[in-house]
């Protein structure tokens, strides 16, 4: 059964130095508050897994939390580069970052296989492209019926998954709706999981057609962190802070502006700051 914890307790419970973690959320519901707490706790040598590293992993990479990145698209959506990610790959700052690169289809299938407790995923992909020549984890199997050769990737089975959701009920069941991404698969593929939520409710009430519900017994810990997805968004709560995504380009371009921003906004702040961000975004919306 999921336990209700503070964000700090939750990060301590699910992350340890050297472990692998998937912090997921596909544009929607990116667990930024949990990323900040990970920086504050000074976690090291993490294997970071995420389809789109986005600002959340740019921050972790820049703060030297990551040893390895498993990913499929490393940009600032609609804006351009992730400068901290590029600085690590191009210049080895703050240290060398090992990368394992896939396509979206490969990562989505690898999460699905992890949730299904399979050791690998099979899909039609990687035809004619160069990624298999630089990623030895991309292999193949032959169909036992047709002889067709299909691509394989290892299942994603992280030590921990961290997601942000809309609601938890008092039994610890979790609700996501809107764009639900790969979060269900991330949680089910992981050994342990932390879910930050916008609110805790008595009853989920009416739900959208594509609502995803995670039973309490499939979740390790839940922390109540309103606004915890900012500058990403929480459907029905607050909108995506597009202006912050644009501003990040300038903040993260240079090492010193990045470090100054992290000091002011992460190291010197706590999870409560997110409630204010979300409120400001909601009022602006």
């Amino acid at each position: 059964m999921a336990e209700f914890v503070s964000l700090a307790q939750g990060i301590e419970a699910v992350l340890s130095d050297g472990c692998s973690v998937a912090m997921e959320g596909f544009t929607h519901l990116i667990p930024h508050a949990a990323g900040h707490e990970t920086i504050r706790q000074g976690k090291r040598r993490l294997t970071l897994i995420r389809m789109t590293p986005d600002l959340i992993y740019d921050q972790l990479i820049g703060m030297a939390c990551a040893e390895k990145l498993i990913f499929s698209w490393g940009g600032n959506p609609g804006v351009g580069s992730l400068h901290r990610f590029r600085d690590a790959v191009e210049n080895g700052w703050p240290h060398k970052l090992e990368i394992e690169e896939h396509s979206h289809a490969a990562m989505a299938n690898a999460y699905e296989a992890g949730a299904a407790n399979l050791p690998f995923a099979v899909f039609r992909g990687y035809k004619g492209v160069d990624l298999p020549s630089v990623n030895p984890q991309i292999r193949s199997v032959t169909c036992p019926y047709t002889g067709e050769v299909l691509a394989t990737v290892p299942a994603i089975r992280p030590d921990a998954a961290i997601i942000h959701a809309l609601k938890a009920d008092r039994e610890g069941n979790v609700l996501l709706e809107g764009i639900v991404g790969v979060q269900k698969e991330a949680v089910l593929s992981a050994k342990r999981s932390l879910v930050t939520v916008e609110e805790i409710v008595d009853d989920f009430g009416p739900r959208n057609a594509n609502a995803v519900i995670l039973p309490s017994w499939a979740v390790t810990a839940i922390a109540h962190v309103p606004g915890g997805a900012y500058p990403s968004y929480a459907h029905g709560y607050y909108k995506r802070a597009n202006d912050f995504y644009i501003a990040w380009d300038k903040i993260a371009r240079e090492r010193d502006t990045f470090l100054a921003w992290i000091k002011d906004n992460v190291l010197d702040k706590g999870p409560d700051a997110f409630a204010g961000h979300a409120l400001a975004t909601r009022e602006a919306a």
Partner: protein
Amino acid sequence: MSATPTEMMTIAAARLLANTDVCFVGIGAPSAACNLARLTHAPKITLIYESGTLSTRPTVLPLSIGDGELCDTALTTVAVPEMFRYWLQGARITIGFLGGAQIDRFANLNTTVVGPYDAPKVRLPGGGGAPEIASNCGQIFITMAMGTRAFVEKLPFITSFGHGKGKGDRAALGLKTKGPTKIMTDLCVLEPDPETAELTVVSLHPGVSREQVQAGCAWPLRFAAEVTETPAATAEELSVLRDLHARTRQAHGVAA
């Protein structure tokens, strides 16, 4: 009122789309083109964004692939693994849109690195959905602005496969889809030559010369036997497109 080069690129792409198409849409010019088509001659076109939104009808352009607007106006929204398994790999998409940092003469694309993979000069974002969009959609439309750093002689890295080294390479890999059939640029429209699959200029946008097009391309460009002029943007096309961008700016505070 005449179209800017970027508008012309978007409008040329929109004209190719029909009510019966099911499009896998990316952010930027593809999204603008698809929604322009939907708001003009193809109101029943089906638009899909890789965040999982099926049959979506946004009133403003999304800034990200997963804007709430896409979900709010969708028939339904599915999880990302389902999107890639049942819908893209399921061969249900008729047209996929791609762009890239670099393209070669056989419409292969690079969005991964400039320089060696292990010690890149510029680390680009990577493939994302592109490798499997390129192989699983019925055909691919590419939108890219021209320039000699984008239209290059040789790619340092093939992120998504076009026509390889020429006609027959797709079939040799077992691919049954058509691959890139149209490349819409800010200056012209190119198509793979029916005999060789090499990209060939088939129409020039109004006021653009062959020399201007060649100046935007690092390899010696082929021109079709009959190069036509891309029909100028109509007043309706331009006003619908500009209204869409204006609504988008108003909604987001920034342009999409």
